[in-house]
């Protein structure tokens, strides 16, 4: 582990290259453009392909095309582009094409606040595309963690054959800080398994023991069909309700089965916490300071920080709801994850929001004030 001064978006580039990303397609958008510029420089040096596409839909499409040809691929964008990508995120989830999508969140909706941070895309990341689909969303809170979770994003994407979204805000993307990057050996690099069965026996959408069939590279000798239509094991379109039900169940089950590997979080001062802050990304950094300040003032606060936003660590939050008097969700939006926490709490503890959507990061003082308010019983639920 070596310490370097690194920008969040640069750490993403480094993580992608180290994880084996060899294809990037993107479209310029603030505040993610440094990723694209970095990839344009770095990829050719490692034999990778870079292309700037005509829009974000095309970018994710090109990434998935390249992925089917055997190259680990990534695109990066921000809110408006992320909205445009939604159809293809659904396509990737349904057709089970590994790829990584970085969304550096800025203020929205619409063009919003291009240069200011936000955490307004967390629900869109989960539910943005139509239809039911599982998805993996990772939320780093530091430059070093951007590196780490970028590598993890590729690894999970390859292992579970699914798009993985790396979701962080403008502050994390643009901050330059001293970063101690974990060694690649400690993270590991997952390579996509290739089928070794006879070509005629290959079932690209079969239900293996691990719920994920190996994905053959186009051009490797296995010929098969990929479609966004509901499909059978061979990838052929079907309208058979039993086959379609089995497909949906398998797609959800593969992430459910892998939950222990996928879901990652951190806790601080939780053992005796009477009020637990749930925060992710840049908000968790302010929350950490608020916790220590609260403790100094005699308020037993703790921090629960999901590093995996989706699938949400619901069981863990439920445990906290049973032990704490109240939960406070600090996030830079008008209330998104707070509802998920409320769902997980199942009425065991009241859930309060500490919300802000004006383009300014939450401050430790704001969060501390909210903690004090909550303990005094003056806060409105969820607000």
């Amino acid at each position, binding site marked *: 582990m070596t310490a370097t001064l690194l920008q969040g978006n640069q750490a993403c580039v480094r993580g992608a*290259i180290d994880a084996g990303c*060899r*294809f990037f*397609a993107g479209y310029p958008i603030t505040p993610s453009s440094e990723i694209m510029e970095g990839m344009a*420089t*770095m*990829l*050719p*040096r*490692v*034999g*990778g*392909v*870079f*292309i700037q*596409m*005509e*829009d974000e*839909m*095309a*970018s994710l*499409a*090109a*990434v*998935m*095309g*390249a*992925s*089917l*040809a*055997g*190259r680990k*691929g990534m695109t990066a964008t921000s809110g408006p582009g992320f909205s445009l990508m939604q*159809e*293809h995120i659904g*396509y990737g989830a349904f057709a089970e094409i590994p790829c990584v999508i970085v969304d550096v969140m800025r203020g929205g909706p619409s063009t919003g606040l291009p240069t200011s941070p936000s955490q307004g895309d967390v629900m869109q990341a989960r539910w943005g595309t139509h239809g039911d689909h599982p998805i993996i969303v990772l939320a780093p809170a530091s430059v070093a963690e951007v590196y780490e979770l970028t590598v993890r994003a590729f690894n999970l994407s390859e292992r579970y054959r699914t798009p993985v979204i790396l979701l962080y805000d403008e502050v994390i993307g643009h901050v330059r800080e001293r970063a101690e990057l974990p060694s690649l050996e400690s993270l590991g690099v997952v390579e996509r398994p290739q089928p070794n069965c006879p070509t005629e026996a290959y079932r690209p959408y079969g239900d293996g023991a691990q719920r994920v069939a190996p994905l053959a*590279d*186009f*051009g*490797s*000798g*296995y*010929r*098969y*069909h*990929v*479609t*966004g*239509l509901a499909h059978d094991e061979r990838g*052929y*379109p079907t309208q058979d309700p039993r086959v379609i039900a089995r497909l949906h169940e398998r797609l959800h089950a593969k992430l459910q089965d892998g939950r222990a590997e996928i879901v990652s979080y951190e806790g601080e001062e939780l053992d005796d916490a009477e009020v637990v802050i749930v925060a992710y990304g840049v908000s968790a950094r302010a929350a950490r300071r608020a916790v220590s300040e609260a403790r100094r003032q005699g308020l037993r606060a703790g921090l629960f920080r999901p590093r995996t936003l989706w699938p949400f660590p619901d069981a863990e939050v439920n445990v906290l709801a049973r032990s704490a008097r109240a939960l406070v969700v600090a996030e830079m939006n008008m209330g998104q994850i707070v509802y998920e926490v409320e769902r997980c709490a199942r009425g065991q503890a009241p859930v309060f929001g500490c919300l802000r959507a004006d383009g300014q990061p939450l401050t430790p003082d704001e969060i501390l004030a909210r903690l004090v308010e909550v303990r005094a019983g003056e806060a409105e639920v969820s607000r």
Partner: protein
Amino acid sequence: MNTAARADYRRYLRLDMMPHILCPGCGHGIVLQAMLRAIWRLGLPQDQVAVVGGIGCSSRMVGYVDFCTLHTTHGRALPFATGLKLARPELTVLAIVGDGDGLAIGGNHLIHAARRNIDVTCLLLNNAIYGMTGGQVAPTTPTEMVSATTPGGALEPSFDSCKLLEAAGASFVARGLSSAPIDLEALIVQGIQHQGFSFLEVLSDCPTYYGRYNRLGEGPEMLQAQRRHVDWVAAPLADKAFVPGFADTAAVADVALQYGVLHRETRPELSEQVHRLIAASVGEGPT
């Protein structure tokens, strides 16, 4: 290159998927067969052919051919194809798109693929209407023609996709007819052989909607009308009411709907350039 008269194209069909879902008399199947004959004639290794489709009747056909096939989203076949070709340049990549698919929702992708001159062969099947969704007006529906969304006749003019693509930079532009399948096969052969973006507009027929709404008859009548109305390059048209892309019969009395190879030039191809850059860059600078 296979020179025998008879092309063994049935080897490329996914027999367990046949028959295909297209309507009786739909010209698309004729185009698909011509494409398969072209692939056979070129002797392309089956594993090294990728066929990408968007959404619509035409794109649906990619599911019936035994290559690496990718049925994507509406309008986006070409970006997928671009990623595929850049990632694995040794693949022969074909894209089958429809007129609405390629020119409306995917119009931006189409012109940019042409501009990039990426080595993809794009067949745009023009039946002058949205078939899969029930016969709505397309960017290729001639003015005054009836569709589900232009019950009183279309007001807007239509695209001449070949002119559009030539202007956008496609280095090979051709127009073929489903009613001239042997010529069409030869055009597709040339399109695949061409290094760079090859665009072929293929006039096809939708008897179910376009033919019915406009009283143009069934498959045979529409096919015969194609032959009557369209001739080789520079032949003038007497009556273009039927021909997609040529609406105003008065205005185009001296304009020919041309078919055959309309434009060809040699220009640097993108995937080759990208990989040349990579070859020159590998190992350079800090990684």
